[in-house]
């Protein structure tokens, strides 16, 4: 399971403030804490209020890379901000993200090819987020086909069914979980799958429990990565245990400890 740490995002108040005030220690601690907790990739997002996202992306990456050589997921809707990041990363990056719109895919897959990056593909297009799994699969297949046109392997794609809050779109969760299973069958080798996990619990009272339960169900349906809060220890423990039950790792009494030594 590839854990993409979600905490370096300008949308969070402390990070937004750190970006404005150039408090590099705040960012660096967040990076180190997430890696220590098991994140193998860190999402980097300058947030919606960044006045100069290109410069902010550059500043974030430079400061993270001063303390960690972890891979980064460059999270922006703007291709030029992503490209700024791609020029700086030390390890192979993930672009977060493209959707199934033709122009967007052309631009993002072009960058992925140029900089040898992996890509998160959102199963949505300009008409919005689908409300059934059939449409999600159709859009995911469009993304896979386009990636192949660019010579990008399916294993370098992370297909995201778009998780919706359970208190807003309760009927969607089953569709989303089934989509994850179907995405894995789109081609061989199978594409990776991912979710922006915390979205499922948005606005609910028991966020951690909802996240944890959804994650375990998604893992059982073939999820191979997730953007989540790695500092939620119970969440990561549940994920490790789910993978254990699916026989992805060999059991031993200290299996949580063993997983974290990987």
């Amino acid at each position, binding site marked *: 399971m590839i854990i993409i740490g979600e905490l370096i995002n300008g949308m969070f108040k402390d990070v937004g403030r750190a970006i404005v005030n150039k408090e590099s220690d705040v960012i660096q601690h967040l990076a180190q804490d997430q890696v220590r907790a098991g994140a193998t990739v860190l999402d980097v997002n300058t947030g919606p209020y960044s006045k100069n996202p290109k410069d902010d992306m550059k500043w974030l990456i430079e400061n993270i890379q001063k303390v960690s050589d972890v891979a980064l997921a460059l999270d922006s809707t703007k291709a030029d901000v992503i490209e700024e990041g791609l020029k700086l990363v030390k390890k192979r990056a993930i672009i977060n993200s493209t959707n199934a719109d033709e122009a967007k895919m052309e631009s993002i897959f072009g960058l992925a090819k140029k900089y040898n990056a992996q890509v998160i593909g959102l199963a949505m297009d300009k008409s919005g987020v689908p409300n059934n799994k059939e449409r999600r699969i159709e859009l995911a297949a469009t993304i896979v086909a386009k990636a192949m046109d660019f010579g990008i392997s399916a294993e370098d794609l992370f297909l995201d069914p778009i998780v919706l809050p359970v208190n807003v779109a309760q009927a969607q969760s089953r569709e989303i979980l089934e989509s994850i299973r179907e995405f894995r069958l789109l081609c061989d080798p199978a594409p990776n799958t991912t979710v922006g996990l915390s979205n499922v619990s948005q606005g609910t009272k028991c966020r951690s429990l909802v996240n944890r339960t959804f994650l375990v169900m998604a893992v059982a349906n073939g999820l191979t990565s997730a953007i989540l809060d790695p500092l939620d220890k119970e969440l990561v423990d549940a994920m490790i245990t789910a993978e254990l039950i699916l026989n992805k*790792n*060999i*059991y*031993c*009494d*200290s299996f949580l*400890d*063993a997983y974290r*030594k*990987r």
Partner: protein
Amino acid sequence: MSVELVKEKCAWAINTVEIGRPGGSAVKIGGETCMPFLYHEGTMPNKPLIAMEILDCEPTDWPDAIKNTYGDVVRDPSAWAEKCVKGFGANILCVRLASVHPDYGARSTDRVVSVLKSIVGRVNVPLVILGSGDDERDNDVMPKVSQALKGENCLIGIATQNNHKTLAATCLADGHSIIAESPIDINIAKQVNILISDMGFDPARIVMHPTTTSLGYGMEYVYSIMERARLAAFIGDKMLAMPFVLFVGQEVWKTKEAKESSAIQGVNWEISTGVAMLQAGADLLVIRHPDAARSLVKYIDEMMKGAKS
């Protein structure tokens, strides 16, 4: 129509463990990135090695088929060691400290240390040192043995799930590598490795003993455990990425097929078990009969011909 072979490439390697005096007699085991001898899938940078086993006292319960091959030297451990190295070309020696076991006379730690020092004085090969199998005696003797051999970078055993702390601490202090044993159980194998590494022991200095069984006595089960551990290691399970040691001689020469028939049948039994274990992924075999050791070295050399340099 040609059939294309399915090739599995893996990103992770088995740890490389160095045994023996650094810059001197040291040898390396492990480091492979493929299942045994499948060179089209990966590499085996270090060939599997054969250690010859001796005791620190006369082996009263070994069959004549082995004792007769060595002759009188079995009464003098350092002469025995020398015969293995100079007479039979052993590159590694495994010294089992049987004499400290209550059933073998419970001899003193001082005597054991002096025997080991005389062996080190006579031969210049890496040493594998095994306790007697009696936990209480071994926990008393092994720390002093480890200390006396400081700098020799030995491979010392045996640590188990319920008795690993003393040995791990002493090996850590004196710079030796350690053998972690599990009772044909992959879950316990992983657990012992974690317990030892949790003590601050470098996982790259642990060698696993998955338990040895002889041909005809459940060898297939050991084979399957080794194979499963290897496949897990190749997809990133660091707590199973240790080289394997197997005590083939010890198990084979207990069987009635080896003991109670002709010497040649015993030797062949030891060779057959050894070959199967090499094919299961063994990195180090401990062998008792010199003829079996010689044949297994030849077999390994033959199998390594396809290895990429």
